[in-house]
Structure formats: C-alpha cells, structure tokens
C-alpha cells in the first residue's frame, strides 16, 4: 500500500468523525427553523459530545460486560463501515476489504450489540426499545441489501467503490432510471428507518411510548453515551453518503490530483448538507407513524427494492 493511501484513509476517518456531528446539528437547526424556534447552532452537537466525554459514566449494577463494551463495538464497527463508503474519492483505498454485504453487516453488528445492551441494563424501557429495534432492523435489512444489489447489478460489481467509480466515469450513463429510481426511494425510506428519523422513530422524543433508539440508550451516560451518539451520527452520514454518491456521484474525485480532491470535498459536503436539510424538512412535514404502521412503510421499501432487482433481471438481460 502506498503512502497516499494511508493519507486518504486518515483523511476519510477525520472527515467522517468530524462531519457527522455537523450533519446532526444541521438537521436540528432546520427543524427548529421550520418550527419557528430559535434552536441551537449547528455546532451544538460538538459541544454536547465534548461535555459528555468529560462526565463520569454510571453503570447499572445488574449490567454485564456487554453494557460497557457495546459503545466501543458500535463505534468501531460503524467507523469501519464508513471506510468502505466512498466520500470524496471514488476508488477508496480500502475497497478491497469489503463490498455491500460487509457494509450492511458491519452496521448490523453495531445494531445487534446495541439491542443486547438495551436488554442488558435491566430497565423495562431498554427491553421495549430493543424489541422494537429488532422489528425495524429485521424489516430494513432485506430491503437495504436488495436496493444496493439492484444498483450493483447495473454496475456489474458488488463493490461500492466500483459502483460509484463506474457511474462517475460514465457521467450517469450507467444509471438506469426505472430500477434506480425505485432503489433510490427504497434506500431513502431505509435511511429514515435505520437512523431513527421521524416517520419511524423520533430522535427528539423522550416519551416512553414512542421511542425506539432513545429507549435502548436510555441507561447510557458519560463517555459511553457520547460514543453511542457519535456512532449514530456516523451511521446517518454513511447512509447520506450512500444516497449521494451511488445515485448522484457528480463531482466526486476519480483521480488523485489535489484540485479533483478539493472539488470532491466541496461537492460532498454540499450534497450531504443538502440531504440533511431534506431530512429536516421531511421530519417537519410528517407525523411519526404508529409502530404497527411502520411495517407498511418498510413493506413499500422492500417491494420497491425487489422490483428494482426484478426489473433488471427481466427487462435488461
């Protein structure tokens, strides 16, 4: 491996770690603005994280090793997953390390441990949150895999870097409108569900009856909470990068020249912040669905991603 590859990997780590709290802040700011509130600055999540890292964590006496280990597992698996997703340059240096399946299951590993931790702390809310998260996760996973595979089929590779590279090089000619549009809508619904956004979960609530993600992490405090929150932000960023770069890879760097990288960085930040604004607006437009209605939304995502795949198989082969 060349030195430049190490530099790119380090750049990617700093970009994901540094930018993810900003995305969370932008969404909150947009929501506050639309709800006619003042709202905190977009930099507030950074201060929250800094404050939480200084606080002492409290651990329930009934908790086993899973409870303190989960934040580290969640944080590291999410960070590892983020290294597989192209952000500013298309062939990622670590693209040999994993494809779509590795990405999906690295994320699922973190979700799995978070569910265990919710049960482990011994509070009733944690268990309820875990069981709800299990419903949502089991419904999103097939839809996520299928929608990514629908795109992979057109590009002829299951490697995310290769998909993005091909689409970027061919200026969208690889894009195949009907199946990709279905996959895009499916992936957007999945993004909302996986990152605990409004029609499925409400990230701002602490009302026991409705919360999913917040219920699981209710017992966390101090640096553990900071790691979990940061990992949630990174997961959001991974999904937004997937949406932006798989379906609209315009402007992403395909060579190592500094000007291409600079342009890639600018375009990437623009696209991700734009998507964050879209999600913020979306959260204000829609009410949270009842838990049993969530299956309808995720069922639609599943059917759309399945159709995207079938469309390719029947009409494109």
């Amino acid at each position: 491996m060349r030195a430049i590859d190490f530099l790119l990997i380090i750049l990617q780590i700093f970009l994901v770690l540094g930018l993810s709290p900003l995305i969370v802040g932008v969404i909150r700011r947009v929501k506050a603005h639309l709800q006619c509130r003042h709202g905190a600055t977009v930099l507030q999540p950074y201060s929250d994280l800094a404050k939480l890292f200084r606080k002492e964590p409290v651990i329930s006496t009934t908790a086993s090793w899973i409870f303190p280990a989960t934040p580290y597992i969640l944080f590291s698996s999410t960070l590892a997953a983020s290294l597989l997703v192209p952000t500013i340059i298309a062939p990622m240096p670590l693209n040999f390390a994993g494809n779509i399946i590795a990405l999906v299951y690295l994320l699922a590993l973190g979700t799995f441990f978070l569910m265990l931790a919710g049960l482990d702390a011994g509070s009733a809310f944690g268990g309820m949150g875990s069981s709800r998260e299990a419903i949502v996760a089991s419904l999103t996973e097939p839809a996520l895999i299928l929608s990514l595979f629908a795109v992979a089929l057109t590009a002829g590779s299951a490697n995310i870097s290769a998909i993005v590279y091909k689409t970027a090089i061919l200026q969208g000619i690889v894009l195949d409108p009907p199946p990709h549009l279905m996959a895009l809508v499916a992936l957007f619904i999945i993004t909302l569900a996986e990152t605990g956004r409004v029609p499925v979960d409400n990230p701002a609530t602490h009302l026991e009856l409705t919360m999913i993600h917040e219920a699981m992490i209710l017992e966390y405090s101090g640096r553990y909470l900071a790691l979990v929150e940061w990992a949630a932000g990174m997961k959001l960023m991974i999904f937004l990068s997937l949406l932006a770069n798989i379906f609209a890879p315009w402007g992403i760097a395909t060579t190592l020249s500094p000007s291409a990288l600079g342009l890639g960085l600018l375009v990437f930040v623009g696209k991700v912040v734009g998507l964050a604004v879209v999600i913020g607006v979306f959260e204000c437009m829609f009410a949270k669905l009842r838990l049993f209605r969530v299956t309808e939304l995720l069922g639609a995502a599943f059917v759309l991603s399945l159709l995207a795949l079938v469309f390719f198989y029947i009409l494109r082969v």
Partner: protein
Amino acid sequence: MPTLPINIGSYLVNLCSALLLLTCFAIVAQRRLMACVDLFALQSVFLAVTATLVAYLTGIHHIYLAAVLTIAIKAIILPRILKKIVRQLNVQREVSMYVNIPTGLLICGGLVILAFFITQPIVHLGFLLTQDSLAIALAIVLIGFFIMVSRLKAVTQVIGFLMIENGLFLAATAAAYGMPLIVELGIFFDVLVAGLIVGIYTHQIQEAFGSVDTSRMKALKE
C-alpha cells in the same frame, strides 16, 4: 426538431414512467382519500410530462394537445370533483379493505413482475425512446385493477379506474407514439363524463345506504 440526443431523451422518458409507477405504489399504501386524490393528480402531471417529452423528441405535435388535456382534465378538473365528493361525503379515510396494506403492496409487486414478464418479449421490438414505458404502463393498468377490486369505498374505486386510464394512455404513447387525435379527444371526453356520472352515483349510493362502502350493495335483492 429535437435537439436532445436520443439516449438522454430515452433516459428522461423512462425516469418519468418510473415516477408514474412510484405514485401507483404510493396510492396503494395510502389510506387517506384526499391524499389518494392528490397522488392521482401528481401521477397525471407525470403522465403529461412524459407525453410532452415524447412529443418534443419525436416531433409529433398532437401529443402536446393530449398532454395539455391530461393536465386540464386529470390533474385539475377530476381531482376537484373527487375532492368535492370526499368533502361532501365526510369520509376521510379508508378504514377497512379486503386486503391489508402490506399484503396489498406485495400483491402489487407480484402484478408488476407479471407485467414485466408479459412485456419482456416485445419490449425489445419497440421504439428505443419508450422501451421501458410499455412494461410500466401494463403494470399501472394491473395495479389500477387491483385498487378497484381491493378497496371498498367508491371514491378509491374511481381513482383505480382513472389509474387504468392513465396506464392505457402511457401504453398508447409508448407503443404507438399516441393515438389519432380524434380517439384521444373521445377518451378524454369519456373520462370526464365518467367522472361526473360516478360523482352523481356516489351521492346516490350514499343516500341509499348511508355509506359509500360498495360491499353493502351485495345486500340488494330484487
């Protein structure tokens, strides 16, 4: 004459057809009648955009007229009539259906796959510009049929009927670059009249049964 290269044109036409199919799924997943009407209006707008694109790219002018009529009748007049009916009937949402929404979505997925299978042998023979539109049009027709048989309220059944009409229009545009103008005018007039008649009938059903639930009409005896 068209200035867009044919592959970009085909790209845009396919994109719009796919949007039509997506609105179909949104209608299947939607319970609120007002939202169904809005989604139908949106679908008609996409249909008009598709027709305009085809008209522009092929230089066949009478499709423009069909697109304008689509906007006027299916995106403005009929949704207004339907919304008026919904307001007067005071039914906001469809509470019971023959199949629940997740099952309905899966059935529609199956119908779309069926439509793709049926059209697969002929899709390659069609015009390059509208290759995918024919498959999608058939899928829309089938989903329209499904909505007509699976929903109980008269208003949603009308929307299903109008969706079938949208699918047929798309099929005509895709397979033959539009029907002769006189046929299209006749169809638009028919659809408009059908919308009016159905509006009146819905009132009659409401007055006779106290509900627009068409399953109650099974109780009719000679």
